[in-house]
């Protein structure tokens, strides 16, 4: 069964020019992307900065709405049923500033759990269990402003899991983690997937994509270039596949990227 469907999705950001300029600057974040993700599948989005990975995640989470085309999550069109979609999708945002710094880890999660309709009676147990799963139990009484960046990363995932979502979105989940913590997190992602949660993650890390994803999708400048299964794929093979799909994009210098 398909958990997420992108049908010819187009998303363009329009910004006014400077001062009195009437010219609008347009950025085509997604250009006619069609994609399906099955229930319980892990899909990794790969692509350079500005390729449309975060826009894809934001559309699934309903933070953004498409200009054209259709995004369907668990059978619900995000335009027509955004509130129902939100109750089923967890988006792990790890930005340090997205928490309340003076509250403890437990107090932050308790607040978000209340907003996610978790009853007062169930909250302590659910928070405790998630903190254990995510290896943050010892940090529960710590004020969030005293956490390391790796802990913020894990707290972001804990917050996304608090509503027991059927779809989990991860934006570079191991960016600030050491290799051991990253490996633990990959194990958790696999476990969640086995439990039937559909996971879409945006990453630049080939090893991560191979370790956790069932399929990878390569995006570049809003275009979906290729999709393939990762079974039997090594990190080197994935790198070659990616470079072939993007026309060697990774090997370009920043100056070449700007000039392009």
């Amino acid at each position, binding site marked *: 069964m398909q958990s997420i469907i992108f049908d010819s999705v187009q998303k363009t950001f329009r910004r006014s020019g400077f001062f009195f300029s009437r010219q609008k600057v347009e950025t085509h974040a997604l250009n006619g992307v069609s994609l399906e993700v099955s229930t319980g599948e892990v899909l990794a989005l790969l692509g350079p900065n500005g390729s449309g990975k975060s826009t894809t995640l934001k559309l699934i*989470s*309903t*933070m953004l709405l498409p200009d054209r085309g259709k995004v369907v999550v668990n059978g619900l069109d995000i335009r027509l049923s955004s509130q129902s979609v939100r109750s089923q999708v967890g988006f792990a945002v790890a930005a340090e500033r*997205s928490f309340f710094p003076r509250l403890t880890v437990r107090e932050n999660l308790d607040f*978000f759990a*209340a907003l996610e309709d978790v009853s007062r009676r169930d909250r302590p147990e659910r928070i405790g269990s998630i903190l254990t799963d995510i290896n943050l139990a010892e940090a529960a009484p710590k004020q969030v402003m005293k956490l390391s960046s790796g802990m913020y990363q894990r707290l972001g995932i804990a917050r996304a899991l608090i509503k027991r979502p059927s779809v989990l979105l991860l934006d570079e989940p191991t960016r600030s983690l050491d290799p051991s913590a990253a490996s633990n997190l990959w194990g958790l992602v696999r476990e969640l997937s086995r439990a039937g949660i559909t996971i879409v993650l945006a990453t630049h890390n080939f090893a991560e994509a191979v370790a956790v994803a069932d399929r990878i999708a390569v995006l570049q400048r809003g275009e979906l270039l290729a999709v393939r299964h990762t079974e039997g794929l090594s990190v080197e093979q994935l790198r070659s596949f990616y470079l072939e799909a993007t026309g060697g994009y990774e090997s370009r210098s920043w100056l070449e990227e700007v000039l392009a």
Partner: protein
Amino acid sequence: MIVDKAGAVLKKDLLTAIRYRNGFVLNAVAQAAQLATFYYLARAVGPQFRPEGMPYFLFLLIGAGFYSFLLTGTYSFLRTIQEAQQSGTLEVLMTTSTRPEVLLGLSAVSAFASAFVQLSFYVAFGSVLLARSMHINFFATALVFTLSVLIATAIGMVAAGLQIFIQKGSAVLWALGSSSWLLAGTMFPVAALPRPVQVISNLLPFTHSLTGMRLAMLQPLSSAVLQGEIGILLLFALALAPISIIFFSWTVRRARQLGTLSFY
């Protein structure tokens, strides 16, 4: 569930306020200083000045106290959005299972609760000093209070919507706040203003909130004037409440479409 959510928001705001200890203490000092200012201002003006037949100190106390309460509540909607935009929590909050309008309303509840503590402090202080001049009509007071809170909530939602829409909700509230401080009869009666300005003054809902609250708390008998003020407040509330919810929902949807939810 809504009570549970309101409790969570109150707890979050209370814990945050307490943990910024210095700010908490300074706020209490500022309120005491303001009370002292009103007291000595009323003494300097003298007991012969009785606007609308009320002792000036109580006129000032209820006017400024209730006005601050309403304005704090109104500003809280804007502040909630601005702080969430700047702290990066807005997008996260907007992806929770709680509707944006409900979330905004709950955030304002704690701001109103905090401002209510200040208002109660003012009223208690006035009661201690001039108990004989206070004649509280509890029913009318509750009615004026509820309708005024509804109106302040509606204006606050419009300001929050404007913050999301044009990122300049503060300019609108600044204009409203500074003009209504003068026009709503906070420090002196509206009758002291020139005639054409009085017309504008009467178009502001807060003018009727202050007049209604003073009449409900300081006049011995319920009057036709008080009933008239309550009627006007009811009309404002009925008109502004649905408009504000529709406008705020529309701005959130538009921001999701344009990708500008977190812009500030």
